[in-house]
């Protein structure tokens, strides 16, 4: 096929997954290890001399490619397809060096094996990295394999992208829960989620959220969490502890934002109250009689000494330094920077309480970023390693306490003790985290949720698979929330999250999908090199100072807005720019972003919040950080020659930018705010899946939503590497087609490699009534010719080693019984089925021989449909006998009545009849019979005009022999310069209609049809044309549930429930009510009694008990009968009442068996139930 056989565009859709993992491999792990605090162990028992202090730290992490390992010998590369088939995990060995250093001696390095870490597919350590489609197919992968997921126990799992609060940005928030913190708190606070950075801007991804609460008395408290407890410090104390300064200076710094002259001017944030509050803050500290930095540090240190572990022996001021370093504004290393940021936050808080600035919305994408797989693994790994180190210390100390011959000075001895807590557990812990999506952690990692971090990437069809990588979840904690405000579609997410592609129902609005152009920033620059944030920031600062920014120096007091705006670079107050110049600076920065990426990185977010009256707090917020959303737009100030005008913008800056649509108009913009940017194409606001709906701009919007959901449950061409897969369930369409009507995204993303439907000739008419209420009639002959044929591939994995380990050490193997020859037609001599063999329900498909008991057992097929053995794969690895097999079954799933189909416009329907060809209406001129008939009532209320357009266009397209482009919003794109504007007015309908007309068809797409049954002309013309139809995975064969008689419940003798076990469908209370309402007493009796637990009980009329009846032994009677006497009436009764010791009063009564059970249950509680019998005549 002459397709563009490179999958660049597809690969780009998952780069955020792969890049984040690559960074972890390249640098992230090393940075993370550096950030783990070295262990210090004192041998306090034997000696206190200096040489008895041991420092242990980890360095030099090494992660290896997945290898087949056996003990320590490597046996070559472990490939992903092998993992999938053998249900293994695609993991690579993870090692690091432990450095032991006794004080004053040389460092001793020891290699330590931390087990295996899962390797992301197509990451730097994956064997598929850089392989071209040809190579990939030779490695038994998809030609279009994109990677980005993990293989764990043979299952493909993706890390779910989670929304996180934007890092290093102080956000003002109102939350009523803040008020309940402690007495005197208000509901207002400024919150900042800081991500740890150390030395030259190395980021290890762990974050600590700091909250600055506003108190009713005008003061502020700085809140942060240590080990699951929240601590609140007076803001003044922290300020003083950070910098050795005077109260005067703090006062000046805090109050600089207020100037009487500008108090009513636009953009003023301060008020006269600020001065009072500053005084209160300072007085608070004074009241505690803390005057100097030293006093404050001492106070903090004493307070936290028992809380922070490992610092029991440190001086209070050291403890205080640790707290300041590790818990307060951890993204900054410099105390001056922390001080400045706290001042800034206080000012923002005060302005926010004075309502001179508005609160930030934490639900808006503006204040959000995303959690990437590499980052999640890094922080989790860090936590696990820290735990391990802590445990190691405990173990060594315990050993020291034991006073045995443990030599503290011998590294080998120490290592042996440390190894008691096996380090390989760490790899396992990470693997388990990815397997279950659950974090097993004490601290919570500053995360809102504990579970749901990973999901299985089902390959139901390609679109579903793709969507897993593009999905962004708001967080599990929001799913249970009663309020719906988090689910709202906010204008801030324009261009980043698709407004159409979200499921309806429970996760609506929480599970969003990124638009097709949306990307996530990474640690790699455009050349693929790891970014050096130190250099980047330095370069940005140079540019800024060149543009007239005054740097923030410790002693310098600057006025606040509206004269001067603070500049924050990644949460650090770097300086101030005069508001008169800021616009110029921003414009210049944006130009440099595009034109000089070496100076200013292309993905820098220039978050310029302009001065406003009561709007967002003004300032210039620059961020270079990774894991921000970005998307490309055109910068109009740069000429579009050579496509060099593409600027990457983020959701924070977008809100304050003027971006116009690319239709050539100004979008109703006033001249005071001319557009500075332009969208690339209107379809950029849609996700990949939403982009595939033809002419979605002509549909009612909920229909497009439904289509996005249904596209993901379509039974399509899920995989090309089908023979090498062992997925539990795979749906497969036998003869898929490429849609005649398609959008530009279809070609861009090579969806032709994974087509999802069939071009069916659809007639819209009410024919025979079998197409009422969204039912549809299929042409039986079309189906017989192969339309919508499909299969389900289902793999059964049988691992005998697993089974035998569970049930003792009995050696089991696959073998068929030589005695029972009846199985030989189904099972081959190796105990496994013949490939191509048809197996009916309850027939055996493999036979297992147990050596110990010398018995063979067969595994029988469950389910209700016959299957065909498609494939048998055996694991021949180093075992005497076969132990592990994959048997893949093929279920044929050709369309039958009850199967679900849908067009690409949210028009789903169920097949209600399969009419033969001759009964379908036919066209007099062409003789065409439709493949499918749907009811015209499907259209008026749903308004899926695009489906009608598709029908007409596909008809024209097939007559022309050309595919028709159905990209939505094509009319809203500026015509390229060549085309005149005169040709504009021709509408889409006109274009399509004339195409039909030129081929001798009706302009409106209708045709005269004749009844297939009578041969007479139908009274009206019928709209007919090809529409791309998808077959949905919901099929009756998997769902039908019928029974007449069958299994019953042991206790109640009522029919059991559950389709799998052959149970019935409950005839419940509401059904009972309706029967009663109809007076259908016989039917009710039939359902609830005769067909349920009908029972004839023997009741003793004397004592009225149902329970005391007992059977008389028949032998006794037999002995008595010998005499030849006629049997007495007594003797003929086989039952007798045990209580009355007679059978005189025994009667039979029909009753539900549960009633008898109820009597027994009551009896067990010492309640007797008595029945009074009469024959109904007296009553």
């Amino acid at each position, binding site marked *: 096929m002459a397709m563009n056989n490179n999958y660049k565009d597809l690969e780009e859709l998952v780069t955020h997954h792969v890049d984040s993992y690559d960074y972890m491999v390249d640098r992230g792990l090393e940075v993370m290890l550096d950030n783990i605090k070295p262990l210090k162990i004192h041998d306090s028992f034997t000696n206190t001399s200096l040489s008895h202090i041991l420092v242990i730290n980890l360095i030099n992490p090494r992660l290896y490619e997945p290898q087949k390992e056996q003990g320590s010998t490597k046996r070559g590369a472990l490939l992903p397809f092998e993992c999938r088939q053998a249900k293994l995990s695609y993991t690579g060995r993870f090692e690091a060096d432990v450095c032991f250093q006794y004080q004053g001696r040389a460092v001793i390095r020891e290699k330590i094996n931390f087990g295996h870490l899962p390797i992301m597919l197509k990451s730097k350590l994956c064997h598929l990295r850089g392989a071209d489609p040809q190579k990939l197919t030779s490695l038994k992968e998809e030609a279009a394999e994109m990677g980005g997921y993990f293989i764990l126990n043979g299952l493909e799992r993706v890390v779910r992208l989670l929304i996180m609060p934007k890092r290093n940005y102080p956000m003002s928030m109102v939350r009523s829960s803040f008020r309940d913190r402690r007495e005197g708190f208000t509901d207002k606070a400024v919150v900042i989620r800081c991500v740890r950075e150390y030395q030259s801007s190395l980021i290890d991804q762990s974050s600590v959220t700091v909250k600055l609460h506003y108190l009713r008395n005008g003061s502020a408290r700085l809140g942060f969490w240590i080990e699951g407890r929240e601590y609140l410090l007076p803001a003044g104390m922290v300020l003083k502890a950070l910098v050795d300064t005077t109260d005067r200076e703090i006062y000046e710094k805090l109050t600089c934002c207020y100037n009487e002259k500008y108090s009513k001017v636009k953009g003023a944030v301060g008020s006269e109250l600020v001065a009072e509050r500053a005084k209160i803050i300072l007085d608070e500290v004074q009241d505690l009689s803390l005057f100097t930095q030293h006093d404050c540090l001492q106070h903090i240190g004493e307070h936290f000494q028992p809380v922070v572990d490992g610092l029991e022996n440190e001086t209070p001021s050291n403890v205080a330094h640790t707290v300041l370093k590790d818990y307060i504004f951890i993204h900054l290393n410099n105390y001056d920077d922390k001080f400045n940021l706290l001042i800034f936050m206080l000012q923002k808080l005060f302005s926010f309480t004075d309502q001179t600035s508005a609160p930030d919305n934490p639900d808006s994408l503006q204040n959000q970023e995303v959690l990437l797989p590499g980052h999640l693994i890094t922080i989790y790994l860090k936590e696990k390693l820290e735990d391990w180190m802590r445990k190691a210390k405990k173990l060594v100390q315990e050993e020291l306490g034991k006073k045995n011959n443990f030599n503290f000075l011998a590294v080998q001895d120490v290592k042996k003790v440390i190894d008691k807590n096996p380090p390989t557990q760490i790899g396992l812990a990470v693997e388990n985290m990815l397997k279950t999506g659950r974090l097993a952690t004490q601290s919570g990692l500053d995360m809102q949720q504990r579970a749901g971090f990973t999901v299985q990437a089902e390959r139901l069809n390609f679109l579903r698979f793709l969507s897993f990588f593009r999905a962004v979840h708001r967080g599990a904690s929001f799913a249970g929330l009663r309020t719906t405000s988090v689910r709202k579609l906010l204008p801030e997410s324009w261009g980043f999250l698709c407004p159409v592609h979200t499921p309806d129902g429970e996760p609506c609005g929480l599970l969003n999908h990124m638009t097709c152009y949306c990307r996530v920033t990474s640690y790699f620059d455009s050349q693929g090199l790891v970014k050096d944030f130190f250099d980047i920031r330095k370069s940005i600062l140079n540019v800024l100072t060149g543009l007239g920014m005054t740097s923030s120096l410790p002693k310098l007091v600057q006025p606040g807005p509206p004269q001067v705006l603070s500049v924050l670079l990644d949460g650090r107050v770097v300086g101030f720019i005069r508001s008169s110049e800021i616009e110029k600076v921003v414009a210049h920065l944006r130009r440099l972003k595009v034109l000089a990426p070496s100076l200013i990185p292309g993905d820098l977010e220039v978050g310029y919040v302009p001065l406003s009256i009561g709007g967002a707090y003004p300032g210039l917020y620059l961020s270079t950080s990774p894991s921000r959303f970005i998307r490309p737009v055109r910068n109009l100030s740069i000429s579009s020659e050579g496509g060099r005008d593409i600027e990457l913008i983020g959701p924070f800056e977008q809100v304050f930018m003027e971006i116009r649509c690319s239709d050539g108009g100004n979008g109703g913009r006033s001249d005071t705010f001319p557009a500075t940017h332009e969208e690339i194409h209107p379809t950029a606001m849609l996700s990949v899946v939403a982009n595939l709906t033809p002419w979605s701009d002509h549909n009612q919007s909920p229909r497009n939503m439904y289509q996005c959901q249904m596209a993901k449950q379509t039974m399509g061409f899920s995989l090309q590497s089908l023979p090498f897969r062992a997925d539990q369930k795979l749906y497969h369409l036998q003869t898929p087609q490429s849609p005649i009507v398609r959008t530009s995204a279809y070609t861009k993303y090579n969806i032709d490699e994974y087509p999802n439907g069939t071009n069916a000739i659809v007639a819209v008419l009410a024919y025979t009534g079998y197409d009422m209420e969204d039912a549809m009639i299929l042409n039986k002959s079309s189906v*017989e010719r192969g339309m919508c044929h499909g299969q389900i591939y289902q793999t059964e994995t049988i691992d005998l080693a697993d089974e035998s380990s569970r049930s003792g050490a009995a050696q089991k193997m696959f073998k068929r019984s030589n005695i029972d020859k009846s199985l030989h037609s189904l099972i081959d001599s190796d105990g496994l089925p013949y490939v191509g063999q048809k197996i009916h329900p309850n027939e055996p498909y493999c036979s297992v021989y147990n050596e110990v008991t010398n018995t063979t057992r067969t595994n029988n097929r469950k389910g209700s449909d016959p299957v065909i053995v498609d494939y048998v794969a055996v694991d021949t690895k180093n075992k005497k006998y076969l132990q592990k097999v994959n048997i893949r079954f093929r279920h044929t799933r050709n369309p039958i009545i009850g199967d679900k189909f849908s067009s690409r416009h949210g028009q789903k329907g169920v097949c209600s009849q399969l009419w033969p060809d001759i009964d379908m209406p036919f066209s007099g001129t062409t003789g065409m019979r439709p493949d499918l008939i749907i009811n015209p009532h499907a259209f008026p209320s749903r308004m899926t005009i695009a489906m009608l357009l598709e029908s007409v266009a596909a008809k024209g397209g097939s007559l022309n022999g050309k595919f028709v482009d159905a990209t939505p919003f094509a009319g809203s794109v500026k015509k390229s310069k060549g085309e005149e504007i005169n040709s504009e007015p021709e509408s889409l309908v006109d274009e399509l209609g004339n195409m039909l007309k030129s081929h001798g068809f009706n302009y409106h797409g209708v045709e005269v049809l004749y009844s297939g049954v009578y041969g007479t002309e139908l009274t009206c013309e019928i709209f007919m044309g090809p529409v791309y139809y998808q077959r949905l995975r919901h099929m009756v064969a998997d769902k039908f549930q019928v029974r007449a008689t069958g299994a019953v419940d042991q206790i109640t003798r009522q029919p059991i429930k559950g389709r799998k076990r052959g149970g019935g469908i409950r005839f419940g209370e509401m059904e009972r009510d309706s029967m009663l309402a109809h007076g259908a007493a016989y039917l009710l009796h039939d359902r609830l009694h005769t067909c349920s637990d009908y029972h004839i009980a023997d009741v003793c009329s004397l004592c009225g008990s149902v329970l005391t009846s007992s059977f008389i032994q028949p032998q006794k009677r037999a002995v008595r009968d010998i005499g030849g006497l006629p049997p007495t009436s007594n003797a003929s009764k086989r039952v007798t009442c045990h209580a009355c010791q007679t059978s005189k009063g025994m009667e039979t009564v029909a009753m539900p068996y549960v009633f008898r059970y109820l009597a027994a249950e009551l009896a067990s509680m010492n309640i007797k139930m008595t029945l009074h019998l009469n024959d109904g005549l007296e009553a």
Partner: protein
Amino acid sequence: MDGVSYQRFPRVKIRELRDDCAKFELRDTDASIANALRRVMIAEVPTIAIDLVEIEVNSSVLNDEFIAHRLGLIPLTSERAMGMRFSRDCDACDGDGQCEYCSVEFHLRAKCRDDQTLDVTSKDLVSSDHSVVPVDYSDPSDYESSEQSRGIIIVKLRRGQELRLRAIARKGIGKDHAKWSPAATVTFMYEPDIHINEDMMESLTIEEKKQWVESSPTKVFDIDPVTQQVKVVDPELYTYDDEVIKKAEAMGKPGLVEIRAKEDSFIFTVESTGAIKASQLVLNAIDILKQKLDAVRLSEDTVEADDQFGELGAHMRGG
């Protein structure tokens, strides 16, 4: 049974006759007969098609059922079909439907031994009966194309893949499965009767005439270049879409043209799949229709007769 005779004598006029296509007029009858003929042609004229496939080796990319289904859809030359027995009625073989009277055996052996993809086509099917072979669509008059045309592709094999199977073709009808349908398309239309109101037409300007003529998507009318008069070129191209009538009304000239469908006159188009010749298809259909009518007539006399029609019984029971 006395009374007025409603007997009609339908006439057939053949217009065009090719192997795969026939066009004829059917006159002096009504829609029920025309439609019955159409339905019989599609669903009840027997052909031979592969019905049972025993796969020995299949290492191709397509699964067994897929290949079996594809084989079934290959049209086989079925001139013999009318004389053959249905397997279910065959008494020569004991029910397995594999005797020479009711079945034809096919073999297919293909293995790809070189690096080039091997196309397994219908030509690779080896028949046990020379009269029942896959339909050859290549034009015998064209030497060059017949070299290239390799029949209907069943599956493509790459190096090392193999397909070996035995297939049994049986007689059947399209009602049972579409693969037995000999007709690709059978359609008929009522012959249109077009009357142009010449006086009114003359009141139109040449420009209006042109517009009116062009309003029909098919070229039913044309303007005589000499006389400037609108004339009917080909009434049968008219699709009853009423476009010209609507146009006339829109122009303020209702009744400009009057179009009626002749209730007793039909134009048939029959396209064959190639299994039997289009002409034979029509004849066979008429035969079967007659047999069915005979069955109706007979069953009127004797109730028991129902079971005695042999192959016709199936037709009757089925419909």
